[in-house]
């Protein structure tokens, strides 16, 4: 199935959890925040959150800024 992650379309296995998805793309979940369809997903819910067709994900982190 297809999801959009940070503006890019990706193919992922149906039913993949957010935890598994982050691991699959090499992202350390400890210092990021995830928004799914404009709603924040609390870190404690990553294991229980299964991705769905056409989900829109934003994965952000802190970077240098003024």
């Amino acid at each position, binding site marked *: 199935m297809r999801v959009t992650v*940070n503006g890019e379309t990706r193919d992922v296995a149906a039913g993949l959890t957010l935890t598994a998805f982050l691991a699959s793309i090499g992202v350390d979940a400890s210092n990021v925040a995830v928004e799914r369809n404009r709603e*924040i997903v609390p870190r404690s819910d990553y294991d229980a959150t299964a991705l769905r067709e056409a989900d829109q994900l934003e994965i*952000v982190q*802190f*970077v*240098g800024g*003024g």
Partner: protein
Amino acid sequence: MDDAITPNQPIAADLLSIAGRTFRSRLIIGTGKYKNYAQNAAALQASGAEIVTVAVRRVNLTDPGQPRLVDFIDPATTTYLPNTAGCFTGEDAVRTLRLAREAGGWDLVKLEVLSDPKHLYPDMAETLRAAEMLIREGFQVMVYCSDDPVYAKRLEEVGCCAIMPLGAPIGSGLGVQNPVNIRLIVEQTQVPVIVDAGVGTASDAAVAMELGCDGVLMNTAIAEAKDPVRMARAMRHAVIAGREAYLAGRMAKKRYADPSSPLAGLI
């Protein structure tokens, strides 16, 4: 000698308090524009700052192994102050800072809602609206603002925990352009006033502190110095010097000379 003057009296008692958190340093530095995060971390150490501003951006998925700010500046020992750089509406700001709160777990934030990229002046009407939205959501809002005392008062009235007027346009390094307004804001404000933006060199930071500001926030002045670590150290001294001079109370200005050596006893 009960009344002995202690020449190096520590200034530890002179703490900066923002939204219930206390800091020894009155210097806040940005984390943008450095050559790399290692240089940024070295500058932070030299500056003595305890708060850094940070931005919230998408993780680079094509190269998730890139260096991360958190690996160089530890959020457990340095207070991260997430900003809303790049946001032009209250809704953008709220969305960005909700993500920041989830990523970091803290609610002290820097609100900046800009307008025209040419001057990067804050859009004050939208800044005020965004501040109200964020405060309703439980954020502690340190707000970047113009040096307009009227808007500064309104931002304080809606509950911002620090008022941060610009000294000059962001990244310009022009120094405090309107000391009259900065002083008016300092005099009327009960929460900390921190000059944010416009500092170019150490004397600019000292000027801001001598006006009675509670702190100074800067990024480019350090990051774009030829030797950022050395400039960070200079800023540390400038902020302390300016603060001490403000607390000491400067002498009155006079129109004519006044000799320092006694006239009596001249040979």
